[in-house]
C-alpha cells in the first residue's frame, strides 16, 4: 500500500508530539499577535504565548465554537491581512450568515497535501481518473478533491454534483476509476447505473471516496455491493480546512487524522474536560499549520473516539471512529448543514404562520428528504384553497432561498405539533445511520 508522505504519516508517537508542540507554539503566537479575539480570550484566562510550550499545555486554552466564527463574520478571525488570502469558502450558518473560511497560498498547499494523502490512502495514484462529483463552489468538497487529485498526478474530472446521466456517461467514456461524492449520491448513482442498462464490466470504477455526511457500515456494504468498489470514508469540515482532515486507508478500520496539521482532542461536551484516550466524546481540533484561519480548540460537535494503536497499513497517525452523532442538533442533509433554528428564523419572519413546526428527515431512494409540517394560524386562515397554496409555496421558496435546501412544506391543523415543555421535539430523523 502506497503512503504519500511516509515521513509524517509513519512518524513515531514521540516524534509527532514534538512536531505538534513546536507547531502549536507557533500557532498560538500567531493568533495572539494577529487576532484580537484570541488575544482577548487568552488575556481573560491570564495566559500569554509563553504559557503554551508543549501540546500538553493546549488544555489551558479556551474553546472556539461556530457561534464565535459567526460573531466575527466575515473575516474577524483571520490571522493574516486580506492581501495574503487567495481563496474564500463558506458553509451555511444558523442565522443566514455563513461560516467563512480564508486560505493563504500555503493553506491551499497544505490542503492539497492532506488531500493527496487521503487519495493515496484510498489506493489512488497518477494513473487514476478521479471523477469529482462533489459540488464545486463555496462548498469545500469539490475543490478539495480537485487539488488533491492534481497533486497526486491523477486525471481529474471536475464534473461537480448532479446531472446523473452525464455522470454515468463520462464514467463509462472516460473510464473513471475513482468516484468522489457523498455516500448517498453514490448509492443513487449505483441504482441509476443499474437502470441505465450499462454493464458493470463497461465501467473501470475501482474505489470511492465518500464523505460530507454521516453513513453507516450497512450503507458502505450496500455501496460496495452495488458498485463493486471499495468505499472509503473521508472526514473534514470547512472550518478546519475542508475534506482532508481525516480519511480511511484500505484497511478500513478508522480514519487517520492528519495530526501533524490538525490536533484532535476528545472532550466531554457537558463538563468540557478532556477525556482519557479511547473514550467517546466530542471531537475538538486545533489547527497547527493554518495561516488564514487558524483555530484553537474548535468544537466540531461530532461524537467519536480516537484510536492510537498502529494501523495495519503502517501509518501511525491517530485514527478516529466513524462519527456516531452530534452533541448539538445540527442535521446534515445531502451534505448541507442545517440547524432547526434556521428553519425557525424563516418561520418567524412570516406572520401568517405559527412558529410551531416539525421537521421530518427521511431517506427515500438513498436521497435525503425534508418535510416541514407547520400549523396554519387561525388569524390568517381565510377559507380559500388558492391562498393556502400560495402561503405554502411562499414558505417553501423562503426556506429554499435562505437554507439552500429544497424542503417540502405541509400545512397542518393547529395544536397537532407537540408544544415545548423544556425540550420539544422539533425534528424526527427517520434515517438509519
Amino acid at each position, binding site marked *: 500500500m502506497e503512503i504519500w508522505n511516509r515521513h509524517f504519516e509513519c512518524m513515531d508517537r514521540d516524534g509527532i508530539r514534538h512536531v505538534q508542540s513546536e507547531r502549536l507554539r507557533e500557532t498560538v503566537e500567531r493568533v495572539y499577535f494577529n487576532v484580537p479575539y484570541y488575544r482577548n480570550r487568552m488575556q481573560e484566562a491570564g495566559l500569554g504565548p509563553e504559557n503554551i510550550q508543549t501540546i500538553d499545555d493546549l488544555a489551558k486554552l479556551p474553546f472556539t465554537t461556530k457561534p464565535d466564527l459567526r460573531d466575527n463574520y466575515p473575516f474577524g478571525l483571520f490571522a493574516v491581512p486580506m492581501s495574503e488570502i487567495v481563496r474564500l469558502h463558506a458553509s451555511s450558518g444558523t442565522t443566514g450568515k455563513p461560516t467563512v473560511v480564508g486560505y493563504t497560498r500555503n493553506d491551499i498547499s497544505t490542503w492539497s497535501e492532506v488531500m493527496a494523502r487521503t487519495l493515496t490512502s484510498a489506493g489512488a495514484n497518477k494513473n487514476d481518473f478521479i471523477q469529482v462529483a462533489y459540488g464545486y463552489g463555496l462548498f469545500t468538497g469539490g475543490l478539495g478533491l480537485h487539488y488533491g487529485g492534481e497533486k497526486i498526478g491523477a486525471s481529474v474530472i471536475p464534473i461537480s454534483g448532479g446531472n446523473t446521466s452525464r455522470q454515468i456517461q463520462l464514467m463509462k467514456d472516460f473510464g473513471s476509476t475513482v468516484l468522489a461524492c457523498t455516500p448517498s449520491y453514490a448509492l443513487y448513482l449505483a441504482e441509476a447505473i443499474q437502470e441505465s442498462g450499462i454493464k458493470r464490466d463497461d465501467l473501470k470504477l475501482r474505489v470511492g471516496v465518500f464523505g460530507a455526511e454521516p453513513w453507516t457500515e450497512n450503507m458502505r456494504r450496500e455501496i460496495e455491493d452495488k458498485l463493486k468498489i471499495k468505499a472509503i470514508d473521508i472526514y473534514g469540515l470547512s472550518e478546519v480546512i475542508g475534506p482532508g482532515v481525516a480519511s480511511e486507508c484500505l484497511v478500513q478500520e478508522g480514519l487517520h487524522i492528519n495530526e501533524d496539521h490538525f490536533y484532535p482532542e476528545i472532550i466531554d461536551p457537558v463538563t468540557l474536560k478532556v477525556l482519557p484516550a479511547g473514550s467517546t466524546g466530542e471531537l475538538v481540533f486545533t489547527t497547527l499549520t493554518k495561516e488564514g484561519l487558524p483555530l484553537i480548540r474548535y468544537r466540531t460537535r461530532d461524537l467519536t473516539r480516537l484510536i492510537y494503536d498502529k494501523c495495519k497499513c503502517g501509518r501511525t497517525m491517530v485514527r478516529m471512529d466513524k462519527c456516531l452523532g452530534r452533541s448539538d442538533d445540527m442535521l446534515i442533509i445531502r451534505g448541507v448543514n442545517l440547524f432547526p433554528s434556521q428553519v425557525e428564523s424563516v418561520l418567524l419572519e412570516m406572520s401568517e404562520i405559527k412558529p410551531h413546526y416539525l421537521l421530518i428527515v427521511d431517506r427515500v431512494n438513498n436521497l435525503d428528504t425534508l418535510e416541514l409540517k407547520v400549523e396554519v394560524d387561525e388569524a390568517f386562515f381565510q377559507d380559500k384553497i388558492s391562498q393556502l397554496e400560495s402561503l405554502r409555496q411562499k414558505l417553501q421558496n423562503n426556506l429554499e432561498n435562505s437554507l439552500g435546501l429544497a424542503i417540502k412544506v405541509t400545512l397542518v*391543523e393547529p395544536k*397537532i405539533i407537540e408544544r415545548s415543555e423544556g425540550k420539544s421535539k422539533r425534528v424526527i430523523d427517520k434515517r438509519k445511520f
Partner: protein
Amino acid sequence: MIIHQLSIFLENKSGRLTEVLEALGEENIRITALSVADTTEFGILRLIVSEPEKARELLKKQNFTVNLTEVISVMAPNEAKHYAKILRILSDLDISVEYTYAFSVGDKSIIILRCSNTEDAIKALKSHEMELLKASDLYKI
C-alpha cells in the same frame, strides 16, 4: 342577506370529518349544507349550520382552525339556465365567484355563493329580482 358559513381547515386524514360532525352533533347543531374543497394534503370543509357562532366556539375548543365566512344564498328553479343567469349577472359586473355549491329542494335550487364583494353581489342580484335567502330561511330548510 349575508349568511355566515363555517370554514374549517382539515388535514386529509381519515376520521377528521367525522370528528367535526360528531362535535356538532353533541350540541344538536343542524347542517343545512356541506361542501369540501380538497387538495392532496389538506381540505377546507364549508358548512351552513343552524347556530354558526355557537358551532364555531365549539370547534375552536376542540382545536380546529375555523372561521366564519360571508356567503350569500339564492333560490331559483333548478334548471341550468337559472344558475347560469345568476353567474352572468355577477360576471357582467366583474364580481368574481370564488366558489359556489348548490343543492335541490323539490324543483328549487338553493345556491350558495362566495363572491369577491358580497355587498355588491347582493345589490346586483336584488336588482335582477333574484330571490335571496336570509340566514333564518336557510336554517329552516
